């Protein structure tokens, strides 16, 4: 079967902890797939199983027909990974880090040097290329690791929280690199920045307690949510006598209220707001909203209200 397919993957650690619970999913093996989920949801466990570092307790997985569990050697030819907790080796320079990784992948020294130079350029870390990793900042070290796998020939690249610790500009730069890279590779990443998943990913999976709550494009995920439109009041605390026929009103910590409702209802309410001169913004719900809806946590830790009038 084409694509990345997992069927009924379970993982029970030696401690007894069940990190994955009969997880099944199927996603086309191109572009970017972003897996999001709370701390401990099972993202890293799934990635480590798919990257042949960890055996599942049961279940099967394949990449474009190659069995990941039974034929790890076949898969290892095609994948590369930056683990969540990987650290750039302190006694290597960025160039040496990338170069030696490429040697492990089996490149000749000449090609490994060339590819390392190109990856360094691509991530704009030339000025650090020959300094010891131990003298670099955390974000640069993170980029060095991402550069190692980008320099490889792997068709599937796993990045477990690649942008954690990057400043906003560096993060944006990395997004650009990944957007370029996804044209000919399949990138499987995890992130806690939902904006990142929204901006980058062709497909998004939401995992909670070792189970997949939803998977698909942002549009497809929106359809899983009862109220796919959001209206945000911009006058903090101001009340307005608007009665949404169906929907949900939530008050965030900033005092602003948010109405989640259907598209039709959203347009009707905004008409009323315009007539009354109330400031508001209306959007299809964001991945944040979908995430909270599916994982069932109140938005921004605010309280949930079912209000008729506001």
């Amino acid at each position, binding site marked *: 079967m084409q694509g990345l397919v997992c069927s009924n993957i379970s993982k029970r650690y030696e401690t007894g902890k069940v990190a994955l619970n009969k997880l099944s999913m199927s996603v086309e093996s191109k572009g970017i797939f972003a897996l999001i989920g709370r701390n401990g949801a099972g993202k890293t466990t799934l990635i480590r199983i798919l990257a042949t570092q960890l055996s599942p307790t049961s279940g099967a997985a394949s990449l474009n027909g190659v069995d990941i569990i039974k034929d790890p050697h076949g898969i290892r030819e095609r994948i590369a990974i930056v683990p969540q907790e990987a650290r750039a080796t302190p*006694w290597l320079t960025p160039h040496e880090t990338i170069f030696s990784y490429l040697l492990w992948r089996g490149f000749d020294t000449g090609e490994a040097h060339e590819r390392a130079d190109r990856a360094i350029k691509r991530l704009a870390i030339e000025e650090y290329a020959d300094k010891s990793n131990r003298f670099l900042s955390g974000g640069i070290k993170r980029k060095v690791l991402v550069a190692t796998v980008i320099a490889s020939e792997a068709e599937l690249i796993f990045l477990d929280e690649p942008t954690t610790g990057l400043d906003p500009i560096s993060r944006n730069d990395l997004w650009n690199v990944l957007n370029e890279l996804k044209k000919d590779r399949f990138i499987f990443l995890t992130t806690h920045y939902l904006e990142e998943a929204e901006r980058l990913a062709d497909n998004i999976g939401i995992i909670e307690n070792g189970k997949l709550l939803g998977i698909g494009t942002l549009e497809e995920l929106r359809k899983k949510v009862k109220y796919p439109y959001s209206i945000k009041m911009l006058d903090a605390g101001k009340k307005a006598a608007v009665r949404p026929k169906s929907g949900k009103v939530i008050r965030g910590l900033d005092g602003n209220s948010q109405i989640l409702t259907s598209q039709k209802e959203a347009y009707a309410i905004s008409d009323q707001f315009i007539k009354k001169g109330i400031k508001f913004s209306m959007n299809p719900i964001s991945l944040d909203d979908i995430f909270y809806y599916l994982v069932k946590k109140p938005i921004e830790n605010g309280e949930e209200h079912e209000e008729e009038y506001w």
Partner: protein
Amino acid sequence: MRRNIGSQLLASVLVNAVYAMKNYPIMLSYTFLSPLSMLLVIFFVSHGSLLGIGIEGGFIMAMVLSGVSMQGDLSHLKNDLKIQDMVVSSPTTAFVYILGMAISELVYSLPSLVTLIVLAALFIHTSLMGAIEIFLAMSLMFAFSIALGFMLSTFSSDVIQSWAFSGIVSTFLATIPPVYYPITYIPLPYRYIAYLSPTTYAAQIAQNAAGYVAVPGAILAIDWIVLIAVSIAIFIIAAKKTRWREK
């Protein structure tokens, strides 16, 4: 893509030995010091009479330390830096990775090995056959300690744990057993305990090959058989028990 196994071996040697030595030269003095310091002690205490045996002991110690320090290095690369995870998810096989690491430990030991070889050339007088026997016994010691080191590294989940393994292994394999002195120096009932360590057999072979002790042919044959059997056994256990892909 055609993958170059030579490159894969080179990667382990560069990361674990060459680049490390370039950055932290102090490491060299450590691997240099350990086998030679014990030799120096033996030399003084025996008023020079055990110099030849001590040199052979230095070789055995260097071989054992290769496995011991590889064990610590592997644990660090695996648990702290997660490099091993990156290599597991790459075309490099466990065997090639470990072989590269084993070579890197030899590179590290070069200063002490070169010194020992010079000393051996000066002070150990043996035939070509004897030299070959010593070389073979040392090679088996090396293979044994590397397999043991790899196996232990896959069980340790923290480098602190692997320091404990290191101390225990080097004490029981190289310091206590009659590696730097003849086994006849150990009073009889205790002598049998020494035979629990494979290094004892290697030492006996080396000491006999250089003419320091005369070991009967039958016992010598047993020495070889035990040494080979133990090396093979630990290799099989290592191959079966090691967790390249974790459970």
